């Protein structure tokens, strides 16, 4: 049966839908607040009913009746299989190796998928501070796949981020700071890394060298426009074409099942 694609949707809807499609049925997903939460919840009510969602505040596989506004919300605990706190989610679930997919955000990203959510400028004398790392680098360290959901802006897609909050594919190995492949940093603890970045303009993936390329471009944009919104020389030669549009059903589910109150989707 041909899919019934939506003719009327907002950029943020496509972002949520494209992100949800990264979830495989049965995945154990560790998600942050906001769009990552919408994406996993949409996946659960559409193609991935057996996906399990972990929120870092402590709940595993909750079945919220109402959309949580943060991962610490009482709503996350409703019908959860366990609600055992951060030690359980970070060490009992994540460090022990259960997590398939991490869903995260970021303020800045570089071509190796290194993400900054800490400061603008030199860390020793920053011009601006963001929220800080939160669980972003932890989830991104041990999830087998990580998907970042971000806003596409030239100043956010940088050759080098000012501060590596969350580890991408090429990283400093401390204490020397020599830049090496992620595999060398994590050694026998290596499980995977960033696999996709989804923005309001396109979907990006990483090649064998851990360098970001444009995989699909969202309807209404050209690959060149996406490249012009990156500070580094984005590889657009592998672009497969347009990102699949949201279906009518996905839009219906987003606005009626996932976020009927208009919390993240006003």
């Amino acid at each position, binding site marked *: 049966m041909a899919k019934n694609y939506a003719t009327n949707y907002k950029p943020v809807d496509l972002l949520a839908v494209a992100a949800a499609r990264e979830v495989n049925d049965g995945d154990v997903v560790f998600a942050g*607040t906001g769009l990552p939460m919408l994406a996993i919840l949409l996946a659960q009510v559409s193609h991935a009913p057996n996906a399990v969602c972990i929120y870092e*505040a*402590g709940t595993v596989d909750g079945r919220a009746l*109402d959309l949580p*506004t*943060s*991962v*610490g*919300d*009482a*709503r996350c*605990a*409703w019908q959860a299989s366990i*609600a*055992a*706190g*951060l*030690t359980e989610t*970070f*060490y009992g679930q*994540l*460090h022990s190796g259960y997590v398939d997919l991490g869903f995260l955000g970021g303020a800045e990203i570089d071509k190796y998928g290194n993400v900054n959510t*800490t*400061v603008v400028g030199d*860390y*020793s004398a*920053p*011009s*601006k*501070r*963001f*929220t*800080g*790392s*939160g*669980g972003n*680098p*932890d989830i991104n*360290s*041990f999830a087998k796949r990580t998907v970042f959901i971000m806003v596409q802006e030239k100043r956010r897609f940088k050759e080098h981020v000012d*501060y*590596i*909050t*969350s*580890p991408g594919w090429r*990283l400093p*190995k*401390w*204490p020397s*700071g020599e830049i090496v492949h992620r595999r060398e*940093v*994590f050694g*026998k*603890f290596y499980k995977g890394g960033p696999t996709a970045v989804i923005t309001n303009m396109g979907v990006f993936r990483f090649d064998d060298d851990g360098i970001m390329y444009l995989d699909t471009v969202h309807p209404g944009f050209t690959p060149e426009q996406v490249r012009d919104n990156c500070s580094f020389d984005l590889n657009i030669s592998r672009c497969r074409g347009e990102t699949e549009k949201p279906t009518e059903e996905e839009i219906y589910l987003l606005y009626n099942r996932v976020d*009927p*109150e*208009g*919390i*993240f989707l*006003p």
Partner: protein
Amino acid sequence: MGKPQQLTLKEAVALINDGDFLTFSGFTIWRRPMAFVYEMVRQGKKDLHLFEVNGGTHTEVLAGAGCVKIWESCWVGHELYGKLGEAVARAQVEGTIIVEDYSHAQCVARILAGAYGLPFMPTALSMGTDILNPKYDNLKKAGLRDGSNPKIPLKKYDIIHDTLYDKGEILLMPAVNADWAIIYASQVGDEGTVRMFAHSYVDAETIKAADKVIIIAEEMVPDSYLRQDPDRNIAPGHAIDYIVVQPWGAHPTGSQYYYDVDADFIRTFYAASKTKETFDQWAAEWIFGVSSHEEYLEKLGVNRLQKLRANSVLGYSTSVKRGTR
């Protein structure tokens, strides 16, 4: 040890000295000991050293009021209701606060080590990040890793080679043993048994890791009641030193099964926190403009509080409008 002592809020806050090392209960905008935090500002506490597994609205109140000298944590903000921690950010940019960044799970490792009486806890999370960049060790730069303060470790972290299973390099995170854990609890028994509703976060570990523990309880109930379901309790009375009973003591943060987050209040605070002047105006009204938490609640008004009141089955308010629909 022995039975915890019951105090008034003002008496409990008076126990805190300038320069003391504090940790708190809760998670971002949930179950924070706000009444205690407001009273610390009223009493003019200075040079506080905070370790927080994560920060939130309470952090911003303390940082904005100039009470904080050292902040070791991983995150500060107000979730959906204010995306940055403006007061901490301003203080870091101005250099009036020493910030030491860890990752969230590294913070958990630190409090776990502290809770279990270990000097450190290993973790392989967040390797290869600038959190570990030796140039960015701000406590060392401030000359505070010389061993003179027994609460500050000699190194921010260490890296060891696993000699037992040969898994390669792994991080060691230093224990945190603060002077005080200030814990907002859903219920405390008359003998000090502590129960949290819906989420436990890292509250049990935070209690165990501190030298002294002050419980700010929404309700005091008979210990015999809590002991009917011991699996739901997170700490025994002998771990608790002082108890303050303070209804609505977490407002504007949420307390599951009692009241929801006061989103409008936090949004207003967040807007005010963006400059020193507007923060001070806000504090003049909501902290210094009232003499007690009871007066603060009176100023908020019954209608506002009633709207936040949690549904007793769901654990959250069903009468607050949260979105645009």
